């Protein structure tokens, strides 16, 4: 099976879906002539032309709304945000337009649109460029929120997102674009809303999403050297959330660590822990522990940034704690 980067996996998904359906177009800052701020859209302008690969001014609120309007009348826009940090300017169009139009119109206007771009921290970009937005987005009904952690998941989920007749927020990762993984040559789709058991064990469940799936797998590999075998449940989609996968794992291992990139209060982990206490109370042998970013804006200095971010060591420490090993 070919091994390709996460970036190329996304590029393949975009190309294949644009070839498949004339209604699909890509719009955003630097997507066309510049070939994408992170080169995800490389070559697409040359293949599909400027009506379908559209450079915009720096105007997130505006072009997010342009996408929603085009989707209401039958096109299938993919709106690229250079990062989700900038998409905050466009949140009104996601929250007040895209997520609500089907409901407010009594079922008449669905909005088949994908909002996508990198999410969360990279390296030393400091406070305004290092935020994980999945909990903000997952809070609202009327959208789906997808956070793939591997090239395989990225391609299969983006293709599903583009074909979905609902608004989908698709959160990528700057630090993931260069990561590599196996991606089949033949076409495949990954259903939105299905978690993936990326490691299997019986000692503890690590439940995670997005780029933290890599951290969880590294932690699992390290723990395995000490004979501790854990489940890694990669949610992949945080709205809708695969509650059955969480339950199945926790009922097997009786212990859980919830790992996420963002802040603690009202984070994704808050919801996961709620499902666990509600559905798995009698199965638990220890309180659930959460691993997340420190409750501060992201600092610039290398040492402080490292201290703020969730990582493998913090995850391993959490697993050992719920197993009462430390």
């Amino acid at each position: 099976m070919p091994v390709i980067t996460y970036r190329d996996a996304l590029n393949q998904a975009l190309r294949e879906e644009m070839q498949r359906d004339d209604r699909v177009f890509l719009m955003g800052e630097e997507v066309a002539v510049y070939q994408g701020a992170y080169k995800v859209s490389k070559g697409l302008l040359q293949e599909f032309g400027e009506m379908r690969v559209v450079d915009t001014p720096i105007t997130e609120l505006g072009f997010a709304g342009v996408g929603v309007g085009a989707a209401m009348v039958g096109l299938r826009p993919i709106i690229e945000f250079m990062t989700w940090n900038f998409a905050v300017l466009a949140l009104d169009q996601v929250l007040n337009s895209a997520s609500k139009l089907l409901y407010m119109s009594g079922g008449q206007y669905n909005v088949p649109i994908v909002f996508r771009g990198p999410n969360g921290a990279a390296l030393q970009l400091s406070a305004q460029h290092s935020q994980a937005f999945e909990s903000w987005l997952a809070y609202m009904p009327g959208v789906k929120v997808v956070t793939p952690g591997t090239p395989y998941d990225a391609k299969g989920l983006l293709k599903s997102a583009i074909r979905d007749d609902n608004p989908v927020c698709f959160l990528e990762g700057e630090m993931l674009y260069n990561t590599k993984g196996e991606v089949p040559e033949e076409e495949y789709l990954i259903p939105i809303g299905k978690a993936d058991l990326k490691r299997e064990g019986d000692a503890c469940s690590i439940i995670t999403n997005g780029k933290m799936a890599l951290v969880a797998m590294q932690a699992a590999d390290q723990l395995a050297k000490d004979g501790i075998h854990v489940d890694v449940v990669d949610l992949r989609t945080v709205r809708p959330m695969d509650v059955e996968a969480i339950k199945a794992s926790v009922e097997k291992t009786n212990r859980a660590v919830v790992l996420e990139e963002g802040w603690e209060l009202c984070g994704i982990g808050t919801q996961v822990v709620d499902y666990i206490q509600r559905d798995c109370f009698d199965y638990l042998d220890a309180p659930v522990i959460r691993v997340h970013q420190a409750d501060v804006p992201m600092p610039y200095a290398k040492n402080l940034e490292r201290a703020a971010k969730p990582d493998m060591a913090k995850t391993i420490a959490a697993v050992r704690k719920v197993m009462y090993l430390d």
Partner: protein
Amino acid sequence: MAKKKADQPKSAADAASNPDLNRDLLHSMLLQRRFEERCAEAYALGKIGGFCHLYIGQEAVSTGTLSLLRPDDYVITTYRDHGQALARGITPRSVMAELFGRIDGCARGKGGSMHMFDKSLNFLGGHGIVGAHVPLATGVGFAIKYRGGDQVIICYMGESVVNTGAFHEALNMAGLWKLPVVYVIENNRYGMGTALERASAIHDIFERGASYNMPRAVCDGQDVFAVRQATQEAIDRARTDSLPTLLEVRTYRFMGHSMSDAVSGTYRPKSELDEYMKRDPIALLRAHMHENNEISDEDIQKMDEEIKAVCQDAWDFADKSPEPPLEALFEDVLVDTTSDATAEPVAAD
């Protein structure tokens, strides 16, 4: 999509000499007026809830502009949307049932006063966040151009919208990409209670179009013929040359901002209101038709009685329409379909 020949008069002069058309215009405006008078009554009785923004005084704008659109054109508007909904052809029954929060409403009771929708009429909704629907209109213009069609979209907004970022961003792209959008500013002088002069650094707000290299115009919003003439020019420009227009229509709201706002008082004196009410758009059209012997007092009386009966029928219908079933609470949050890529092929004309 087949191109349709627009069988509309080319100018206000044609319109002014067309008794049948004028009768239709009068009917449309009077329907909105009588309908909303009943809305105010229903609101006082608690049959309509939430926010309710009446359009009374501005009917020449909805009627004048929408009388020129083709069925395959698009309309999008603000939360002050009853007038345009009726003028576009959503039935009084359907609009009233929506206001009453009933299942037979044009949004099945999920939208209410501020969110009238009818996909069969390409009525893309009343929108409640000031300015937010303006980029949507630009997106519809983009889609028309993308498909190579010759439709247009009319986007209504109040004058306070021109100070939002969404307006600026949306009009810049429409000017940049040359999209077939007619942006109609219904300048009724007040954004809620804040006068235009207290909110905008320039007062001839159609001149904002200059920033976007956009054709622009201003017209009298109480004179339905003036509205039609200015709109026809904008529609022609959009349909033929795929160019946007910023059209400022100067009008006046005879009622408060919403039902909780007094008609006059804190932010506008009664004398100002009285002055504007001398230019009631319905009275002006009626006077014109009288002068030209196009309509008699009896005809007007008859039309009014018929319209009042239609409004009573709408009320009775809405009153009898069931509330949405509780199962509807969780319906229409998401659709459970995916694209099959062949549903709606993109083809130029």
